[in-house]
């Protein structure tokens, strides 16, 4: 049975994982774009990204485009699996509530 993931479930991290999961496979998202989308501060986003990176769920790559530093974030295979398992756990709970609880 799919397991609930407390690390992913935090709302900002949940949205980070959902956003990265919706990208085409292997695609990476620029830090600034993710920050705008989630409407969080640089520090707040960086702190959540660090937690996800420490868990091995995302990969953070710092690079330069011309002279400007750019940070790209991508989901790892482990992150993809963990997120999908978490979504499955949420759906299982909902299914139990909507029908299974009575059966």
């Amino acid at each position, binding site marked *: 049975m799919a397991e609930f993931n407390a690390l992913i479930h935090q709302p900002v991290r949940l949205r980070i994982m959902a956003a990265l999961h919706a990208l085409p496979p292997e695609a990476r998202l*620029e830090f600034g774009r993710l920050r705008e989308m989630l409407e969080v501060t640089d520090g707040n986003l960086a702190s959540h990204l660090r937690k996800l990176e420490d868990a091995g769920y995302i990969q953070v790559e710092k690079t330069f485009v011309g002279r400007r530093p750019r940070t790209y974030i991508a989901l790892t295979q482990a992150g993809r699996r963990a997120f999908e398992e978490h979504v499955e756990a*949420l759906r299982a709970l*909902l299914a139990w509530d909507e029908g299974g609880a009575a059966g």
Partner: protein
Amino acid sequence: MSQKPASPITPEEARQALELIESTSRQMRRLAAYGGMPYFLIVWGIVWVVGFSANYFVSNPSTRGTIWMVLDILGLLGTAYVVWYIHKRGVHWPMGPTLGWFWFAWMVYGALFVHFAQARGTQLSMLISLWVMFGYVVSGLFYRSRVLITLGLTVTVFIVVGYVALPAYFDLWMAVLGGGSLAVAGVYMLTAWR
């Protein structure tokens, strides 16, 4: 009564979390222009509908050739615009350049095969269409997209059936079922993913 799944949250919280995931995913797919795929399909679907219709309805071969040349240029410009638009929105796809070079090599080899095979008319249309669909299937493997692979295989079946069973109407068949399938698949993706 079935056993409650092990979870520290309530079903209502699970519902809210799933809604949050859904809205974020939708927002992201829009931002990334859905990986470009539905737009590529719509652009090239329209190219095929117009191009194959011209093959069927326009009698002058030179005019047909010019129409296809203009359509291909427009298709390439449309494709380049979608790629640029996705990149501008902060989405970087490392496999993108590989896929771009793949299609470039694909076109060069396709042109060489077509030139030396000395095919003409309907046979030429059939060979090019099959070649392009093979490209769709391989791109589907790059994208890991079952939709693209299924679409490529389905249109391949249409091409073979049209060529074998209705050679006199092959171009019309390809405009409707070939180009139509690509464009409809693109529109369907946009609608279903919204």
